[in-house]
């Protein structure tokens, strides 16, 4: 049983994802463990074959106890290794957490190591409550199906309110919008998807996210965090994708390294993310470390939105629906599919010009989707 946090003493094994005799690659999830922080997948750091399961589902296991034995590819059945080595607890240099915040985080299964401190450099109840807003499911003390996991909508709404109130209080927002003509993109998607089975088809969100991730290279001042009174630029592009939940509430888990993923990989990540959102198995880092957020209204909704930045991020992109619009083409009026995209930026870090450059660059990239 690996330590999945400095304060973790034990976990309850809720599911084996591999059976004895199954081959295991390095990094494969092997089992699901319920901790105070929620259900967490345990990866194997050893490739090989699952030789023996030592712990039955439902048992509470102290950290350090052997869960299973993996036999190396080239080993005989004999010398066995533990399925997973204990991991070092996350280090929290310089970050202080209030006792009440720590307790709430434990109760809610929120990973304090992934939280961003408040204005004073400390993590308080406000930060944990904000993280709770981003996390739809209450922690399950014992193995339960996702449907059984309670969704605390009231708490989520309170946390959204806390985060948004903080945003409105602290962040001087500006808004810059553009309407992009998307006939080229849609035609290309139709062409690409025609050759694919339904499960492998790309959503328009995929090239859109990719274009944004690449555009950010030109405007790094929109990608990062505002911490301790200064902007910290992010090297990677982790785009938080805001997902509205049925029954209310909002969650924006991150897709990591969007700028470096090809479209198929990005699509797979998006699928996986949606699946895991429904399964309540998000990783703490996904909830806490987006460097920018995209809020997409989707089809048959509304034309535009003015989004509110999710602190400590410094920008958020709002996408309206794609709808047929009157469009000037070569001096004549035509009807073309178009989308209004609005960028909210943090004036402490950037000006409207940055957002305008970003939008122009996204428009350019979407004119050549095959190059994404």
């Amino acid at each position, binding site marked *: 049983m690996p330590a999945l946090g400095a304060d973790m003493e034990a976990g309850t094994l809720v599911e084996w994802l591999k059976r004895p005799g199954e081959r295991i690659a390095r990094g494969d999830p092997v089992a699901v463990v319920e901790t105070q922080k929620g259900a967490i997948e345990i990866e194997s750091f050893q490739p090989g074959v699952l030789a023996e399961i030592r712990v039955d589902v439902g048992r509470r296991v102290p950290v350090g106890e052997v869960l299973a034995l993996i036999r190396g590819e080239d080993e005989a059945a004999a010398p066995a290794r533990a399925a997973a080595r204990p991991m070092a607890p996350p280090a929290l240099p310089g970050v202080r957490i209030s*006792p*009440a915040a*720590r*307790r709430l985080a434990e109760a809610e299964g929120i990973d304090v190591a992934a939280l961003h401190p408040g*204005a*004073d450099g*400390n993590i*308080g*109840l406000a930060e944990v409550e904000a993280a709770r807003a981003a996390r739809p499911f209450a922690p399950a003390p014992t193995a339960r199906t996702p449907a059984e996991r309670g969704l605390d909508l009231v708490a989520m709404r309170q946390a959204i309110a806390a985060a948004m109130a903080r945003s409105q209080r602290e962040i001087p927002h500006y808004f810059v919008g553009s309407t992009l003509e998307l006939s080229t993109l849609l035609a290309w998607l139709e062409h690409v998807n025609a050759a694919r089975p339904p499960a492998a088809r790309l959503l328009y969100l995929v090239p859109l996210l990719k274009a944004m991730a690449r555009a950010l290279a030109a405007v790094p001042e929109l990608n990062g965090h505002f911490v301790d009174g200064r902007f910290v630029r992010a090297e990677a592009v982790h785009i938080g994708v805001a997902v509205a939940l049925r029954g209310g509430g909002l969650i924006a888990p991150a897709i990591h390294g969007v700028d470096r993923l090809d479209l198929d990989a990005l699509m797979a990540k998006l699928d996986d993310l949606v699946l895991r959102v429904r399964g309540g198995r998000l990783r703490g880092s996904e909830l806490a470390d987006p460097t920018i957020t995209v809020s997409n209204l989707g089809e048959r909704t509304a034309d535009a939105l003015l989004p509110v930045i999710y602190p400590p991020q410094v920008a958020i992109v709002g996408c309206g629906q794609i709808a047929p619009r009157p469009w000037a083409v070569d001096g004549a009026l035509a009807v073309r599919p178009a989308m209004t995209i609005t960028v909210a930026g943090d004036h402490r870090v950037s000006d409207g010009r940055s957002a305008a450059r970003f939008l122009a660059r996204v428009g350019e990239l979407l004119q050549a989707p095959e190059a994404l």
Partner: protein
Amino acid sequence: MSATRRITYREAVREALREALLRDPRVFLMGEDVGRYGGAYACSSGLLAEFGEERIRDTPLSESAFVGAGIGAAIGGMRPIVEVMTINFSLLALDQIVNNAATLRHMSGGQIAVPVVIRMATGAGRQLAAQHSHSLECWYAHVPGIRAVAPATIADARGMLWTALQEPNPVVIFEHATLYSDEGEVPAGGEFAVDIDRAAIRRAGADLSLITYGGSLKKALAAAETLAGERIDCEVIDLRTLRPLDEETLLASVRRTHRALIVDEGWRSGSLAGEIAARIAEQAFFDLDAPVRRVCSAEVPIPYPRHLEEAATPQVDTIVAAARGLMRR
């Protein structure tokens, strides 16, 4: 709500004294200048004429002897109210209060009750300089065997004395000297007595618990008013009883608000505020969202000039600033 009337703190104390003298023939008042002079703070003016020298007794300037005599008379079947002019002079009677009043019940294995009530004015705020500005309530609150109460409102000044007189233990009542001329509501008639067991929530709030007592209550309430304008919602708790502390009320409040700010006119080192902070840390640590803060008197004998006296003691603006800090603003 039944009818009320408006009187000063001084009048409330006087009414309470008069009521006690009328209701219980065992009660008598003793202290320096309580008779002819009418009390240093005029709390007993007119009582000598009404009750005579046997029951309104001017004493020589001998705090140890007359406080000890009050203790002895209480053991001897009376219900003495001893007025020590100010807490500053009570140091001359510390031996009697700490070594006799507080211990006799226990040392005698429960045989001896000491139902004495000792009143004294306390606190700074009137430019009386170091020897007349002490807030040493915590010294008495430190001692088991004593009950220490601090009426901060007119109603408590009116009602606590009678309850204290029903107590079979020594009770020390601290009246902050800046309160005597304040006005407030008391019941128009009927029973005035109030309990001396529980702290009172003088203002309900959700964001932080402002814990105080005595002369600092009105400052805390004024600070809470200012902070409300900044959308900081303070809960103001009046301890009322300094010993034994009503932990239940204190801790319940801190568990609701997750933040505690203690305002105490005593010096910070070894203060009652320190005791309260320790109890919060001991019993509500995991409910805290911020370190406990204190606004106490600066570590200096209280100086004479007004601006320095104000700087040395808790003020509305220092309370407001500490509250903002606690709210991370």
